[in-house]
């Protein structure tokens, strides 16, 4: 009987301990923000395309400007396709180059839109 008790008590303690650990881990996860999504140049390009479309529709970009920006986005897509064709996957340097190009287009969109807003005032 004593032998059984000796075996049973550590088991109960272990169960309580595991429950405590699980609950505290859950609380920690609750407090922490959701893990950030990995950086995706495709998403950046898609977002910029939406911005160009919206800018054109709201007349903050002229047709010519919108087409120029789409051409720039197409160049980035071509560059990415070439990089993928060469190495099958993007290196850290490739991603940095693409991100730099995408950022430049983003800056151009906002600059052109700001210019239009300044002109309208």
């Amino acid at each position, binding site marked *: 009987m004593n032998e059984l008790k000796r075996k049973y008590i550590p088991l109960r303690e272990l169960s309580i301990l*595991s*429950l405590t650990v699980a*609950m505290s881990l859950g609380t920690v996860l609750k407090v922490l923000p959701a893990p950030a999504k990995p950086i995706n140049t*495709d998403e950046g390009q898609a977002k910029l395309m939406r911005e160009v479309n919206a800018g054109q529709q709201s007349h903050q970009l002229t047709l010519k400007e919108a087409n120029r920006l789409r051409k720039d986005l197409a160049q980035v897509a071509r560059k990415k396709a070439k990089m993928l064709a060469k190495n099958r996957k993007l290196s850290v340097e490739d991603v940095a180059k693409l991100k730099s190009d995408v950022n430049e287009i983003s800056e151009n969109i906002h600059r052109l839109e700001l210019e239009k807003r300044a002109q309208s005032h």
Partner: protein
Amino acid sequence: MSTTKKIVMVASAVALFVSSLPAMAVAPVSHRSQRQKLSITSNGLNKDGQPIWSSKISVPYRSWIPVEKPSAVLLCVHGLGFSSESFTEFGRRMAGRGFAVYAVDVRGFGEWMKRQGENQVDFEACMLDIESALRTLQKAYPRLPVFLVGESMGGAIALRATSRYPELVSGLIAAVPSSDRYAKLSSELVVGTRYLTGKNKPMNIGPEVMQRATANPKLRAKWEAEPTNRMKMSPKELKQFEDFMKGNQDAAALVANTPVLVFAGFKDKLVKPEGTINLFNELSCQDKLLMIIGDGEHLLLEENQLSDMLATLIVDWVNNEAHSGRPGVRAPQ
């Protein structure tokens, strides 16, 4: 293992799972509210028997809806000179295979010809029409993938729409979307000369286009006799068409994630199959398929030119892509 231990372990697991739930990034789903608002019937028709999106959009269109619940939606865009009427046979056959088929009139063609002030070719307005149609169809069929289908100029329009609104398009089927035509230089010279002498004076492009597009005299006669077709266009409109088609390569490069099926007719004497192949190579997406139809002329989908083999291929491709589970493709339920 004792029962107590089992219970405690299950409780621990449940506690861990429940506690971590809010930390997971879950996108909100609003399908239920959309369905309630639209009150969609199973076959895509409203209570009046009209297609569910008919009251939501002002773009002229035709539709062919299957009796049973459709498995996918096809939005078709016609070629230069035609109208949505040209997809009649295609629409009937595809509806028979379980797809809801819609075809819009491009600005300047079909029903648009009767609208004062809107009867001229306008590709930018057409892009907005397509976007509006895609959004309406997505709302009307919230759980179905929507595929864009286009032939010749319609293929180029569908390609452009896919590059601009990838989030609205589950897949693209483009037949001869290339701008690389035979005798392109001479036709451009003719248009350029006419542009200088009278840019708004209509010129008949019918005879040359029809002669190159098909060797079938019956098809030519039908093409010519169809009242909804328009083969007289001004040099200004033709220049706009040329300028629009020049953007094909960039549009193809911008298609990065949407699955694409491309067709070209080997016996096409109007658009060079090599041009379509070059355009295919320019597509950035990995999920792409090119079919060169050995006995195919310029028209492969419109004007009753859809062969049984091609119809089967399209049905299989659409069903396969619809069930692929690829990001952006909504699986039918």
